[in-house]
């Protein structure tokens, strides 16, 4: 090989190497000088998992990420708008209770709380319907059709958990998405039974934006797992961490507006859900069954 050819090969090799290094340093979402998951952190997590009789059955996000608080306001839909969406043209009976408004239209009922939380239910017995098992895909389609029909479908809606209740019933959760991350506090949860939607619960926040100036690096997912296990007692039977995902979560507040921090959502055995604050590592909720 002559020198000229050797130079060509070396130039190509270093070019590729530099592109990889530059990506590591400058790619969006990666802070050049930010911390990823260190091998020590992963080792600590593995030891903690073993001590607490847990197993990691999900991939661990490794990319270091930056995030910030998002500012939200309570859901905007008023009882009048919801009445129009759910029962347009129907004969509706309205009951004003101390803590909520109840709208009744035949077999359907809509409970609306002042904070913007509402729950729709179809009360008729659906057991007499078509006796064909429902699959998850069909259930999702039915849920999406229902949302579209009621004018409640949002472009920033993202499919979350699909929980099979029995062979003819599914519970599907849709989350609001902001900058490609789910807001776990802002959701629509729909129960599809046989050929129709029998229940829907909604708490859909108005997102005002993200505090860019407070953007900073979040703790690694491994650290979040360690923090959770530090709070939990060791389990007698082995349990699995089935999902870890970065999103946003806070409690519901009776407030004008509030900020929601980024969290690592950790799901244990597909049923217990924990939210670990992705800035400071404290647990934002007691376990929530979903």
């Amino acid at each position, binding site marked *: 090989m002559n020198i*000229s050819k050797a130079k*060509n090969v070396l130039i190509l090799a270093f070019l590729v190497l530099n592109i990889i290094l530059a990506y590591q340093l400058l790619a969006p979402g990666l802070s050049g*000088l*930010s*911390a990823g998951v260190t091998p020590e952190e992963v080792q600590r997590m593995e030891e903690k998992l073993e001590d607490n009789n847990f197993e990691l059955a999900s991939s661990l996000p490794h990319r270091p990420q930056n995030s910030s608080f998002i500012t939200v306001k309570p859901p905007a839909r008023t009882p009048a708008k919801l009445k129009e969406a759910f029962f347009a043209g129907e004969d509706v009976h309205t009951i004003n209770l101390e803590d909520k408004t109840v709208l009744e239209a035949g077999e359907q009922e809509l409970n609306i709380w002042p904070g913007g939380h509402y729950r729709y239910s179809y009360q008729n017995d659906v057991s007499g319907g078509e006796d064909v098992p429902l699959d998850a895909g069909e259930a999702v389609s039915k849920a999406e059709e229902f949302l579209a029909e009621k004018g409640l479908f949002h472009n920033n809606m993202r499919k979350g958990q699909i929980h099979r209740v029995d062979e003819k019933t599914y519970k599907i959760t849709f989350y609001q998405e902001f900058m490609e991350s789910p807001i776990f506090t802002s959701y629509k949860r729909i129960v599809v039974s046989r050929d129709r939607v029998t229940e829907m619960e909604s708490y859909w926040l108005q997102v005002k934006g993200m505090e860019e100036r407070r953007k*900073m690096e979040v703790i690694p997912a491994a650290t979040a797992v360690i923090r959770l296990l530090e709070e939990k007692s060791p389990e007698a039977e082995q349990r699995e961490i089935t999902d870890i995902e970065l999103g946003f979560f806070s409690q519901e507040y009776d407030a*004008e507006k*509030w900020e929601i921090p980024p969290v690592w959502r950790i799901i244990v055995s597909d049923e217990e859900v924990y939210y670990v604050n992705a800035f*400071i590592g404290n647990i934002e909720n007691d376990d929530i069954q979903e």
Partner: protein
Amino acid sequence: MAPLPGEKLKTILLVVLVLTSLVMTYLVWYGMPPYEETEVVFQESFFFEEPKEKVETIKPEQILIPVEEEQKVILNQQQEKYEQIWTEIKPLLEENLSEEEQVGSDQLPEDDACLMVEFDPPFPIEIEHIPYLAGLNQLMRLEFYFASETFIRLEGEEEFQYELPEDDFVELQEMVADFEDSDLPRYELLELEADNDENEDIEDLDLDLDIEDPEEIELEIIQDIYLPVEEVEMYNYIDLMREDLALEELLQAVFVNHKLARQIEEPDGTLIFTDGEKGLRVSKYLEYTAPKLEGSAATHSYDGAIQEANEFLCYYGGWPDGLYLDAISRTDETGIPGGEGYFNARWRYYHQGYPVVGNLGETEVKFNDRGLYFYQRTLFAPGDSTGEKKNISWNKKVLSRALEFYVEQNIEEYINEDNESAESFHLEDIYLAYHLEDFIENNLARAYPVWVVEIEGEVIYLDVSELNPFWRGEEDEYIES
């Protein structure tokens, strides 16, 4: 043979690529500190002001000057004469009293003291270099006797007497002598007709109680209560101005990194900041909570607890002029490691001798060995604006109404025959104060004169005009009604 121009360019490009790859490799390798070392969580701590000197933390609860038989002039915080006398006396407590000057109690003059200074909470005397004064660590009372020499008597857990050069107290003596002709109100001890040594018969209170055998009720006065002999002057109301709160600095002081505290805005304008472990609420008052720190022991010494309370107040908002430490106590009996308990300290503003009271008018901290876990700070301090002056006189009806109210509210306890204490009540204090009731606008609140009656650890307020009673802690309901 000279290289071709293209080859030269390749060489330069290769060198540049090698160098940039070295630089970037260095940045990737060494520029990524482990997570624990990154400066994402911590920031420089901030505090509002240095803690006060120990001698400045506690001032007398009251200064008493006997003027006529059984009658006394009583001076309280934010009265000119109180401040003058305290300024004269304070150096005495900062200096080491000499053991040589100590005398026996039998050497004190037989006449009553000419000046009495009462401390509640007790004054923490510096005893590090004077071990024989250990019993005086918590000074509760200081008496001056002006005879041929000046004698003082200090009372804490133990008592000590000193004979001091008369010349040291000439000004103080003159000040005290002036009270003979002063037009300041006179006070005398509350006494009820007693049918035995301990319990007071309260027949003359003429109680209107809807209970069987009201005459069975007994009242025990557990400490000296001085009440005005004649009318005293207060204002119809006093205005309180909102403190200019430096919120950004406060957030910096409270949170490890205030950028990590999220903000919640309630419909009434209340702001809440929380990082999930600590919360700061800013509304008509300031409230800080850190529930995870609760449930520990409180093993501080008395001195240590005062210093801790002093630091908390100064660090988190500052100790404004006119705010006095009014109470500090360990709430429960377990001041031992492993137990559960806490210190509770309370500060009040005073206006010309009368405290500003009420849930939202006082400042309070609760802390244990883990640290501060509750802090409520009143944001309203007395200003210059007041209503008209009004005359208020003591009347036994104040006590009757308070007692009736207390018994009515505790009727179930009263009729429980197993509970013997229900028939004998401890009367702890009666005094006049301004009660913060109205929030006129965002920056202005108003306080009205009330009688404060403390029975069995409960605090009852009665407005001075109609003597309508209401509990401390139920003031919001009272205000709304």
